[in-house]
């Protein structure tokens, strides 16, 4: 089953690369740089989805106390932080030629950056705290408050934006993106492919963590 999903992901990735670089026409207003959005948007979707799933798995862990849910949570966080870094870097690369600036105080950008710091805080806490059930419970609490905090960050940044409008002066700043049929299809296909790869990597990571946990248990017994 696992090999089947690996093969499917590989196939979808090759199709995705073909669609992005060969099939989809160049967007009229933004030009070639627009193609980076076929990576940026799926990574953003995955990193936002991850914090919600981590909160759910953390709640399940707190209720059931089954260590597997904790392994899933930490695997999600590790993959989530990588997708958050990819999202931020691809966004910055896209923003400079289109907006004329690397960064603005827009609500989505602020939320994305703080979400990255929440992932960092979660993983650093797990790294520095002595291992044991208290670490797992505390990490679950951090994930829950981090997930609940994220919409507040977005809303606060939105109100801030309304009071402090930023000026973007790039050559394409005032142009609307023309997301026609082909572009929308390619974007949806990219989202599907990257989401599948994401779940596959999380699954693999969780497997390794469970094996590592069992190995450590055997080691301490002997």
């Amino acid at each position, binding site marked *: 089953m696992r090999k089947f999903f690996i093969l499917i992901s590989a196939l979808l990735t090759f199709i995705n690369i073909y669609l992005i670089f060969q099939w989809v026409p160049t967007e009229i207003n933004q030009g070639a740089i627009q193609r980076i959005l076929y990576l940026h948007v799926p990574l953003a979707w995955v990193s936002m989805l991850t914090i919600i799933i981590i909160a759910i798995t953390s709640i399940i862990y707190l209720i059931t106390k089954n260590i597997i849910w904790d392994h899933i949570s930490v695997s999600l966080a590790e993959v989530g932080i990588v997708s958050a870094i990819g999202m931020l870097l691809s966004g910055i690369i896209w923003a400079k030629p289109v907006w004329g600036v690397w960064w603005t105080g827009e609500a989505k950008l602020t939320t994305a950056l*703080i979400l990255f710091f929440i992932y960092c805080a979660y993983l650093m806490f797990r790294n520095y705290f002595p291992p044991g059930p208290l670490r797992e419970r*505390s990490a679950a609490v951090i994930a829950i408050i981090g997930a609940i905090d994220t919409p507040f*960050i977005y809303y606060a940044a939105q109100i801030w934006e309304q009071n402090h409008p930023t000026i973007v002066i790039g050559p394409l700043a005032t142009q609307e993106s023309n997301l026609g049929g082909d572009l929308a299809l390619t974007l949806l296909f990219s989202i599907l492919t990257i989401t599948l790869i994401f779940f596959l990597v999380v699954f693999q990571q969780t497997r390794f963590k469970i094996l590592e946990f069992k190995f450590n248990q055997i080691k301490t017994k002997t």
Partner: protein
Amino acid sequence: MKNSFSIFKYLLWKDLILELRSKDFIISVLIFSILTITVFSQAINLTTMNPNEIGPAILWVSVAFSAAIGIPKIYAKEKEENTIDSLLVTPINRDLIFLAKSTSIFILLIFCEIIIFSLSIILFNIQLFNPIIILISVITTFGYSSVGALLGAMMIRTRTSEFLLPILFLPIIIPLLIFAIGSTEIALEQNNWGESLPWIGLGITYNLIFFPLSIFLFEKIIIE
């Protein structure tokens, strides 16, 4: 109910007395925030910038950073003497321990903010003692103290609390920080309740969600 209130009063009195004797929290928060405000006021050309815009940003950022440094001090005595386990063994409701800690952090932060506000008035020439800004301060400090009490309790069994707490605390209180800075700016520019209402709504909603959540999650992280 009467018994719970007596226990809460006693726990609060204990925390405040310990702080009054050691003054660890007050000194670290005051010194750090005064230094931060002074450094920023030297680094920025205040004659060319609008003090009503720059003053609140510097003020609230310094309060947030100072709170992140000061909160581990509230739990430091529990850590050194290992008194938290003694408290947990007693047949008292754990929520009362959280309430006492968050109330003590709230009272001490408010005390420090009075001094920090006075310094900001002198350095930035802004009028901070008005009813809207006092309400903003109460809402923000309440949020800082409830989140800080929860995260501080999490760090009680680790040696890296001074390093880890700011990393956890600052991303979580970002909405409150944005609320405090934005609403203080509006209050200074317009001194109008109507304009401040969306901000005050955000601050109150944040506290309405995070305060009960912190009480509920406190027990999960305090018991080993």
